């Protein structure tokens, strides 16, 4: 929202604060100023002049004009405007001026003649957007400055910081803040009007919840034409486009009082009644922006006997709008429910100056004030205009102003310093709150109507009013008194962080991936669309699903990085989202940090890690990941998975079992998923890892008697797994077997082509004596027997 510093100064007479400083004051006490910019500073070098003589220039459409600049003397300028003619009053830009965009005006030869400065069109000096001719003034003295068209500053306030302040969507509201900040008086621009005469128009409101108040006036003998230039200039400065006198006044009053109004051509309205009602399904309105909108039954419309003529609070209709020939006007000034306007505006994707204001919950007491101000200005811009009948005002009972009990001691404790009672009263009154004494240290505060629609309702709101006006910088920081207790532990979080550190230490770099997945990608990995939680309003269609697995994005990471690197390792710890949430234990609960199940989808943290290598047969990467699994889950075991998913190498996929539970999966990507080389992927359930992680270790007494070792080499078929043979030996062991360690496996001569030799080193011992040779032999014999019974040969 743009504010004119000149306008604010008119409402706070005598205000003598530099505009930039004003911006800073507003920022620190009211709302965020995004910047203050000089508007049309070059107007210092613009004067009203009378064109006294115009000569044609041969071979040019330009003319050579002599102008009377009063005390500044007679000057000559070259002008290309078709309306440059003797007798008119025009705006002369003196040599030396610099216009917007850095355009410098000087003495220059144009079309063979010396031109001292130039005569300005509206768009050249920021008055309006006209460029078809030079500006013409109806009155004034040559040599003087342009009346009401003087250098200004535009203070731009961040709209977001005005969300809760319906009153600050007009200059009067902002001027009230400035007056309170500077301790000056605020001028109310609204004249006192006595509304005589009977209403000549009926208003029927279908639902006063949606439209608590509808006020209107009817005018006749209206002349439509351009607004006075000072009015156009004011609108242009704050970014509103001047259109015509009547429309410009409605915009001017909206920018001043924050109350949007709308002017209908009364002769184009059908019947004598205005209806404020919900739209009929499919009802259409051709709006002033020349778009046609199809409405549903939730939209509120302003209708006449012929149907909807305007979208209430959002935009007027073209067919009943003001046009050049308009003679009679119905001026609407209504109040609409903020939520309803917000919904309609967002459904139509149409945000207008009016809807932006109404959705902030405007003050219903403001409608008639806006009418009074419009009536005053209409008489200026359309001389001869007459009001027909009196005020039309259909109003639901208005709520009483909220009254808040404010305890000064409580206020001081909230702020953290003492604010004197007199100061509190002064501040609240400067913001036009009603203040009454209500006993020792207590005030009764009445909220003004423009702050009562949603902004101020409880004592905490008053803490803000007092705090911002005394200035937060006046509050000395103070250390809080807090219990000297250690914070509640977050063991799951600590576990996850330790995991990150461990994985990174093993050579893996952490990536963050999006939680979204496209349907196409989910399908490529064989995850059924139905098992996903869907995003109802994704930004792009490739972000429509919540990931049920980290793997698809990890594979994407592999593809992307393989373009730059021959070998790399990466990992992510992030949440899988699973649909089967309601009542399910685990995921959502552990992750949410509280015991309640909210019917949320299960969100399970997973660790996904990958090793990629352009070279090699892929085994090294799988072993690296196995090692990583053993680091994060000491003692984890791999077991061949019975079924490979489509993206998994059918002969290289394993489950990871820890403490009897499956905690993850380890596989090589199917060659079709990883054409650049070999990609190995580890996927582990972090929640399970946390749950199963062993309690702290306990010390066991060191062994007192020496242990013995012997080797066993077993001949097996080539595809027999070492783990299978080893567990056979382990099972046979008994309590004297302290360890069975894989030493090596061997293929080649002198072995047969279809066999291999697998060697283990067995460690045996006892807690209470040194094993005798016969005892060791007995263990060894037992193992050999078991190996033979399983169909293997021993290699001697």
């Amino acid at each position, binding site marked *: 929202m743009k504010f004119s510093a000149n306008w604010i100064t008119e409402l706070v007479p005598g205000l003598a604060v530099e505009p930039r400083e004003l911006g*800073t004051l507003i920022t*620190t*006490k*009211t709302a*965020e100023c*995004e910047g203050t910019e000089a508007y049309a500073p070059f107007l210092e070098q613009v004067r009203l002049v009378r064109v006294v003589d115009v000569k044609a220039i041969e071979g040019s459409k330009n003319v050579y004009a002599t102008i009377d600049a009063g005390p500044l003397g007679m000057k000559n300028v070259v002008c290309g405007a078709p309306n440059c003619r003797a007798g008119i009053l025009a705006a002369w830009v003196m040599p030396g001026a610099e216009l917007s965009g850095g355009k410098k005006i000087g003495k220059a030869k144009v079309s063979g003649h010396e031109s001292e400065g130039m005569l300005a069109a509206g768009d050249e000096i920021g008055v309006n957007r006209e460029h078809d001719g030079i500006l013409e003034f109806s009155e004034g003295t040559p040599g003087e400055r342009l009346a009401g068209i003087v250098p200004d500053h535009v203070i731009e306030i961040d709209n*977001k*910081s005005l*969300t809760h302040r319906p009153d600050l969507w007009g200059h009067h509201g902002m001027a009230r803040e400035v007056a309170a900040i500077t301790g000056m008086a605020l001028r109310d621009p609204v004249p006192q009007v006595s509304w005589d005469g009977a209403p000549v128009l009926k208003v029927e409101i279908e639902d006063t919840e949606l439209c608590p108040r509808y006020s209107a006036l009817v005018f006749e003998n209206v002349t439509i034409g351009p607004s006075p230039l000072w009015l156009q200039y004011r609108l242009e400065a704050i970014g509103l486009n001047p259109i015509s006198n009547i429309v410009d006044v409605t915009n001017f009053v909206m920018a001043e009082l924050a109350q949007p109004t709308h002017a209908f051509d009364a002769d184009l309205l059908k019947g004598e009644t205005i209806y404020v009602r919900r739209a009929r399904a499919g009802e259409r309105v051709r709006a002033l922006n020349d778009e046609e909108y199809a409405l549903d039954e939730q939209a509120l419309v302003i209708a006449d006997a012929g149907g909807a003529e305007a979208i209430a609070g959002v935009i007027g209709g073209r067919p009943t709008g003001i046009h050049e020939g308009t003679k009679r006007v119905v001026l609407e000034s209504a109040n609409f429910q*903020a*939520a309803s306007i*917000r919904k309609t505006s*967002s459904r139509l994707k149409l945000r207008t100056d009016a809807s932006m204001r109404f959705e902030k919950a405007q003050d219903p007491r403001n409608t008639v004030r806006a009418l009074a101000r419009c009536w005053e200005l209409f008489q200026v811009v359309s001389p001869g205009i007459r009001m027909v009948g009196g005020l039309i005002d259909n109003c639901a009972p208005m709520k009483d102003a909220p009254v808040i009990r404010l305890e000064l001691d409580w206020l001081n*404790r*909230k702020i*953290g*310093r003492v604010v004197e009672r007199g100061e509190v009263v002064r501040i609240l009154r400067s913001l036009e709150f009603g203040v009454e004494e209500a006993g020792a240290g207590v005030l009764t505060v009445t909220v003004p109507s423009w702050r009562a629609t949603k902004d101020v309702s*409880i004592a905490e709101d008053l*803490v*803000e009013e007092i705090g*911002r006006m005394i200035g*937060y*910088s006046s509050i*000395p*920081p*103070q*250390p*809080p008194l*807090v219990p000297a207790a250690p*914070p*509640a532990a*977050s063991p799951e979080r600590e576990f996850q962080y330790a995991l*990150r*550190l461990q994985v*990174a230490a093993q*050579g893996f*770099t*952490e990536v*963050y991936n*999006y*939680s979204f997945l496209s349907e196409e990608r989910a399908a490529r990995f064989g995850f059924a669309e139905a098992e996903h*939680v869907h995003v*109802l*309003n994704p*930004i792009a269609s490739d*972000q429509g699903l*919540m990931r049920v697995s980290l793997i698809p*994005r990890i594979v994407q990471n592999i593809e992307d*990085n393989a373009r730059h690197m021959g070998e790399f390792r*990466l990992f992510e710890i992030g949440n899988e*989202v699973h649909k089967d949430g309601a009542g399910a234990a685990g995921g959502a609960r552990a*992750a*949410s*940090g*509280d015991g309640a199940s*909210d*019917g*949320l*989808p299960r*969100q399970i943290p997973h660790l996904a890690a990958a090793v990629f290598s352009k070279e090699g047969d892929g085994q090294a990467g799988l072993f690296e990941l196995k090692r990583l699994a053993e680091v994060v889950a000491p003692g984890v075991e791999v077991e061949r998975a019975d079924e490979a998913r489509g993206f998994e190498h059918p002969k290289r996929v394993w489950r990871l079992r820890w403490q009897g539970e499956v905690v993850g999966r380890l596989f090589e990507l199917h060659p079709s998923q990883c054409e650049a080389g070999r990609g190995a992927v580890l996927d582990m359930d972090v929640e399970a890892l946390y749950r199963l992680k062993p309690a702290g270790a306990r010390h066991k007494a060191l062994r007192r008697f020496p242990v013995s070792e012997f080797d066993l080499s077993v001949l097996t078929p080539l595809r027999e797994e070492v783990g299978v043979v080893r567990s056979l030996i382990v099972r046979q062991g008994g309590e004297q077997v302290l360890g069975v360690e894989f030493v090596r496996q061997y293929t080649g001569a002198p072995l047969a082509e279809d066999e291999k030799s697998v060697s283990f080193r067995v460690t045996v011992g006892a807690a209470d004596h040194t094993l005798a040779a016969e005892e060791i032999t007995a263990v060894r014999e037992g193992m050999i027997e078991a190996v033979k019974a399983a169909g293997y040969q021993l290699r001697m």
Partner: protein
Amino acid sequence: MSLAVTLQELKESALARIALATSLDELETIRVEAVGRKGVLANAGKEMAKVAKEERAAMGQLLNAVKTAIEAALEERTGAFTAAALEQRLDAEWMDLTVPAPGVKPGALHPVTQVQRYLEEVFTSMGFAVLSGPEVETEWHNFDALNIPPTHPARDMQDTFWLEQGNLLRTHTSPVQVRGMKRLGAPLRMIAPGRVFRNEEVDPSHEHTFYQLEGMMVDREVSIAHMLYFMQTLLREIFQREVTVRLRPGYFPFVEPGFELDIQCSLCGGAGCAVCKQTGWVELLPCGLVHPNVLRAGGIDPAEWNGFAFGLGLTRLAMMRYGIDDIRLLQSGDLRFLNQFR
């Protein structure tokens, strides 16, 4: 020939051979032949019986002297050979350590993880618990409980990703305020770092997925003055220097009063420059005193308890700390970028 002469000859012959020996093996052969149990010296010893009684002592001394001399010579030569052999071995073991070490270099933690961890440690040291909350949230926790009713325009301010069954992707970490109050009760100090989502187009400075850190303190007496003190202390720890802060009004439905906290621009020291848009201040974080409705939603009685809350932009802090100028890099998975943070 007298024994004395024989011994003398034996000695000289052995010493001569020792001097000429070229290897340890050769020395060993000499040792066995000269002073071994069946060696020449031992044989000579047997002659001792034939020596006259009165000469025997002298002869015995001579025998010992010869033996000692030979052994000393052997030892010296052996030592020389061993030293030479060791020297040769050491020389042969010259190596080049400029060759890269085998094995894998450590990976890197994501820059946001690193900044988050740093902040968690700062907060923990100040007595704050670190909490988590679900990324898929209920509408109630994300909005209603935070004093943002369905009709509130603040719901426009945050473009929300909506999921099935009325759930959503949390638009801020603030819902963990309510979960935290329910879990810990009053008094409490907590932070909640995590991933949040906004339905926004992605460009170099906007992401639909980013990271925040929510903070909250609830106690009997909590004032704006306390919050100011705490924020100054915290920011000094974060930036590792004294920072000047200012509070100005800011609107967030879950706090009342609400503030924007600015820090004085470190580039111009407050004089005004391009970075701070000539204001001398840089907007850093929103904060405020907890709205009584939010305390109620967390099961805490606002008549007895007060609190302040704040939100830090983790993503923004990480970008500031590491000088990252394109937010999209953070979620790119690009190891050329991520490996810079080892």
